[in-house]
């Protein structure tokens, strides 16, 4: 139990350090990317070099990702500051958010179904091949 907590805190500290380093890089080298994205790349490179996710990172990443909504609340509360702006541009927002999302999701679904049709069959082919080889083994 204590071990889990220690790991969780260590993982969290590591994530915070990565974020601080990426913030530093963002300001110091003036990289035109969101600081968090720089952090994602750093962690990804670290994970690739380790070839596995350390338990400490998994255990701290899981609650952070699951409760992301809590950390987004401060940004959403700012809606209240932009009330007039929303009222002024409500038609544009409805079209841009509602209509464009539905249309683009529909087209993406339709196209991906066509594109991935081959992938699915290819998978089944490999499955049947492996099944056949199993049969041969037997």
């Amino acid at each position, binding site marked *: 139990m204590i071990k889990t907590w220690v790991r969780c805190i260590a993982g*969290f500290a590591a994530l*915070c350090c990565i974020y*601080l380093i990426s*913030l*530093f890089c963002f*300001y*110091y080298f003036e990289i*035109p*990317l969101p600081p*968090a*994205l720089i*952090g*994602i790349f*750093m*962690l*990804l490179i670290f*994970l690739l070099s380790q070839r596995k996710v350390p338990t400490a990172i998994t255990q*701290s*990443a899981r609650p952070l*990702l699951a*409760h*992301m*909504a*809590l*950390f*987004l*609340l401060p*940004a*959403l*509360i*700012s809606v*209240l*500051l932009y009330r007039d702006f*929303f009222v002024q*541009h409500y*038609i*544009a*927002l409805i*079209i*841009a*958010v*509602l*209509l*464009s*999302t*539905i249309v*683009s*999701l*529909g*087209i*993406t*679904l*339709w*196209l*991906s*179904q066509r*594109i*991935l049709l*081959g992938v*699915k069959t290819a998978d089944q082919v490999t499955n049947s091949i492996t099944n056949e080889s199993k049969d041969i083994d037997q």
Partner: protein
Amino acid sequence: MTSVWQQIVIQFSPLWSQDDSFMIVCLLVTLGVYLLSRHLYFWLRQNPLFHPLTISTLIIASILHFAAIDVTEFKRGITLFELLLGPATVALAVPLYNQLSVLRQLGIRVLAPILIGGSLAPTIAWLSVYLLDTPLQLQMSILVKSITTPLAMGTADIIGGTPELAAVIVILTGIVGATFGPWLIMLTKTDSEYAQGLALGSVAHVVGTSKALSISETCGAFATLGLCLNGIFTALLLPILFA
């Protein structure tokens, strides 16, 4: 060097430059409201219309209204949660790493739906706000509508949009995508779980991913891949095009 540290320290300064008891009350209220709305969301079988974010925002808005608390003041009170968004976003590298083997196996064809969804959604949205002659601030904020909120906020900030406006648009997009997703899947007769997941993740980000997870595990895994890759592609490309 020192100015760089100053810029970073300024972001953290609300933590010690305000009344401690006010800050603790704000944090506890926000946490309570969040847990309550999360509970409600699961109780209503994860109906996207009752997403914890919308319900929590509505509850907090009414609390602030009746208690006559200034929104800016309250926002300063919950700076801690805002700061935790950074490490939480960095943690997205973990699900992305776990999905990399799938990407390696299926190769380029998995990327196609992500690229289609990731470029189609902002283009259509931008065209509609452009034709309606809205301010540039809104046009820039709408470009990030399909990527995960923390990356969307950072990207909007760089390309001249408003991070808070972007956050709201992104969440609403996710809710619309997750609400109409199952219906659109039926309409387009998409039976491939890969296609369903990739489309939901790349157009409707985290909210779409949780919908995909309720369809199946595979669908959720592909949605995660769509969410991570589209977020990275968009956050890389937009600053190059517009910054």
